[in-house]
């Protein structure tokens, strides 16, 4: 029975519903802009990770090395781009 029941996927589904609820709460609760945006960003990234790992089977084939290398590399580039841009355009701008 344990092999037949897709426990991981069901839990993943529940977890992603939970994340959606948290994100939705930003609309209903009276949060500051910073707080709201942070919450949205964080839940969005976790959500993307859950989808990738649980439902798109990122780690389940022998390509897992290549797939995760790509994902991490993309993540680093994205973070560098975003924070570098913030540095140039806002924080470091006199």
């Amino acid at each position: 029975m344990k092999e037949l029941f897709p426990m991981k996927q069901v839990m993943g589904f529940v977890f992603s519903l939970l994340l959606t609820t948290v994100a939705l709460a930003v609309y209903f609760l009276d949060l500051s802009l910073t707080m709201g945006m942070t919450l949205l960003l964080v839940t969005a990234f976790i959500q993307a990770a859950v989808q990738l790992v649980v439902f798109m089977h990122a780690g389940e084939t022998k390509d897992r090395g290549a797939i995760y290398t790509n994902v991490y590399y993309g993540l680093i580039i994205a973070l560098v781009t975003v924070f570098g841009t913030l540095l140039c355009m806002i924080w470091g701008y006199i």
Partner: protein
Amino acid sequence: MDFFNRFAIPHPSPAIYASMVAIGITVIAVIAGLTYFKKWGYLWREWLTTVDHKRIGIMYLISALLMLFRGGVDAIMMRAQLAVPENKLLDAQHYNEIFTTHGIVMIIFMAMPFIMALMNFVVPLQIGARDVAFPRLNALSFWLFFMGAMLFNISFIIGGSPDAGWTSYFPLAGTEFSESVGSNYYMIAIQIAGIGTLMTGINFITTILKMRAPGMTLMKMPMFTWSSLVTNAIIVFAFPVLTVLLLMGTMDRLFGTHFFTTTNGGMDMLWANFFWVWGHPEVYILILPAFGIYSEVISTFARRNLYGYKSMVGSMVIISLLSFLVWTHHFFTMGQGALTNSIFSITTMAIAVPTGVKLFNWLFTLWKGKIEVTTPMLYALLFIPTFTIGGVTGVMLGMSAADYQYHNTMFLVAHFHMVIIPGVVFAMLAGLTYYWPKMFGFMLNEKIGKWSAWIIAISTLLAFIPMFFSGLDGQARRMYTYSESTGFGPWNMVSFIGAAGLAVGFALIVYNIYYSTRYASRDIAADPWDARSLEWATHTPVPAYNFAILPQVNSSEALWDAKKHGHELFPGKYEKIHMPNNSGVPFIMSCIFFVWGFSFVFSIWIPLILTTIGIFVCMGLRSFEKDHGHYITVDEIKETENNLRGA
């Protein structure tokens, strides 16, 4: 009438009317020629619908050469205008249009397809594959690039060329300061070509990761394949930024958004910022395959294995990462503080380290080698010193405090031409000469080839060294004229002579192609250069399936092993080969994209909606199409192999 006015050239001149007539006549001549010689069917069956990586490579090559001459004419016109003070050859508007199109054509429609040409032709052969991973996607990539290039090139006869520089900085490129449709062309044409490039990136990463010959581990790949892998990784990570940026620019220009405006919360320098987030990796997309070519050429003609294989790979990977960390050095003078500038200064100068490692590796490969100076090798040898001049001035520009002196002057122009011409153009010409026999079955004439290499190298120095001096004296780039009292006159005259020399050099290459096509011997070996890697292990001309038996590989120089150490390259016997079918969909879809782009440029909404539907219909058809390819039988393979061996 207002509707039709947009199609008129806002700033006509006799030269533009002449080119309109010339384009018209050429189109009629091509159509008439194809009809007269009954070549329509041949063209459609063999080229327009092909998914063969070799033919796609050749089509990229032809487009790149055509665009080289388009961009070259722009360059000559610019240098002619600046040759003497207060010249009246071009006015300010024409000069603006010409330097803009020169930049875009040379980078996006010349250098990129040239690289794609060699990558398409060489990489599958070098890894012992029969085609790329997604052959039809590859055809789509080419046709999207081609239609993007054509859309961009009709801008100067319909509606006017873009004139805000190849970087197209806002707010200058916004509707307020650039009213004509020129900048729309920029946004849409590059978008279409860019989608094609992105697809190529995905395609080649997959090909290289999944389709290598048995035994070829990652660290046994030839260096050009390694450089292609790293390049395509950069493409996949950098081009989405351009896609989004161009989309935002299009929205600003056509739909009144305020991403890059100076008012309503827009941020004009954000364009420059994101442009260079893409633009700097783009520089390495151009240079890394060029480095790959040099590695192949130098180790072949020094008759030695490449020195420091692992450090070569390592330095490319480091370059690919660092290339994403330096973009701010393109606008040190924008107004960010010393801390920000220092950070990007340091990352910039850090890139010189892995690049230096590569240069020393080439020098050590040459050390004690039995050097044979053929035309490709001559380009490689000329590259090392000239590129170093460009590279060292790059480090000067990378120092943010000093950059305030160099920024936006001819010094910068000299720097990046001294990097791109020896780096990319020499490499592509070396690659062209080196792979020509594999592509077309005869060799280019060595004597004419060497003459053109020397002329191009000397002319490059003549054209760009003076700019270092006039730049330091304060000559700004993108200025259409200057007064005599500035003293820039003599420098610019020397530059013009250099530019004319470059034109002679390129004309000589064309003559070489003509001469060799007529007189060169067709009786050449499959491995005319006595080279080392797999692409030379198959017949010339390369059969459609590349290798009758998939090669077995033990090192990065499989063919050399087979020639010198008795390695058995093709074990086993013939089996039927699975090949992809040709398809007209990529070509038709790209034609629809062309109309889509044209409608977008001129904001003609009905055709835009219809063509958008058309594009989705093409994609939908692909999803429901059952195309399992075809098999080449053992008998056919035997027949082909016997014919080729006899030839």
